[in-house]
């Protein structure tokens, strides 16, 4: 299993500003992912954070809006840029291994409110 720490746990931000969310894992993991859970909705994958290369973004998400860093195998950041109220969501970090029989583990999430 993996223990994931996410910071901050919640924040209230002004529109037009940016927030960087940190994800720290207690062991080296190959794959790290960032998800968004909008109010009353399910989780949607934003991107796969790749160590040593650019993140891979899902349809509808772009690097300029959600820049991601992955400097090593235990840490990643997601930045929500130029925020608007529509960005108010829970953002979750997830880790997994690219082998069968392994589930994904999730951080507690960052609850973001943009005012």
């Amino acid at each position, binding site marked *: 299993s993996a223990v994931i720490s996410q910071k901050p746990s919640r924040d209230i931000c002004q529109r037009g500003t940016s927030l960087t969310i940190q994800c720290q894992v207690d062991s080296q993991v*190959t*794959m790290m*992912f960032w998800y968004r859970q909008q109010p009353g*909705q*399910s*989780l*949607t*994958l934003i991107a*796969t954070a790749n160590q040593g290369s650019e993140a891979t973004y899902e349809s509808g998400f772009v690097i300029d809006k959600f820049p991601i860093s992955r400097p090593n195998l235990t840490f990643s950041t997601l930045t929500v840029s130029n925020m608007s109220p529509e960005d108010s969501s829970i953002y*979750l970090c*997830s880790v*997994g*291994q*690219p*082998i*069968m*029989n*392994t*589930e*994904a583990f*999730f*951080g*507690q*999430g960052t609850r973001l409110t943009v005012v």
Partner: protein
Amino acid sequence: AQSVTQLDSHVSVSEGTPVLLRCNYSSSYSPSLFWYVQHPNKGLQLLLKYTSAATLVKGINGFEAEFKKSETSFHLTKPSAHMSDAAEYFCVVTPVRAGGTSYGKLTFGQGTILTVHP
């Protein structure tokens, strides 16, 4: 491509009665399937997983699910609901590539909110 459909957005049961949360999936590859639970203001917790071994999977807290390939279903059941089961439940799929490796990317269903009445 893969997708998950949870057939009920809300399910309400009385304590001590059976629980059934329905899930249908589609996947281009052989899937791994999971059920996660999310209690209010808490993180996601894995209930159980199917990874091509036994089709009847037992999980934590008395939950189990049966993988039915012919019906592309993975319904979650529990014989007797407890008040502490009240939460939101997500059915999740990830494709498994030939050779047994998983992409690791998860596709979530829309979620089912389970309410348990005394």
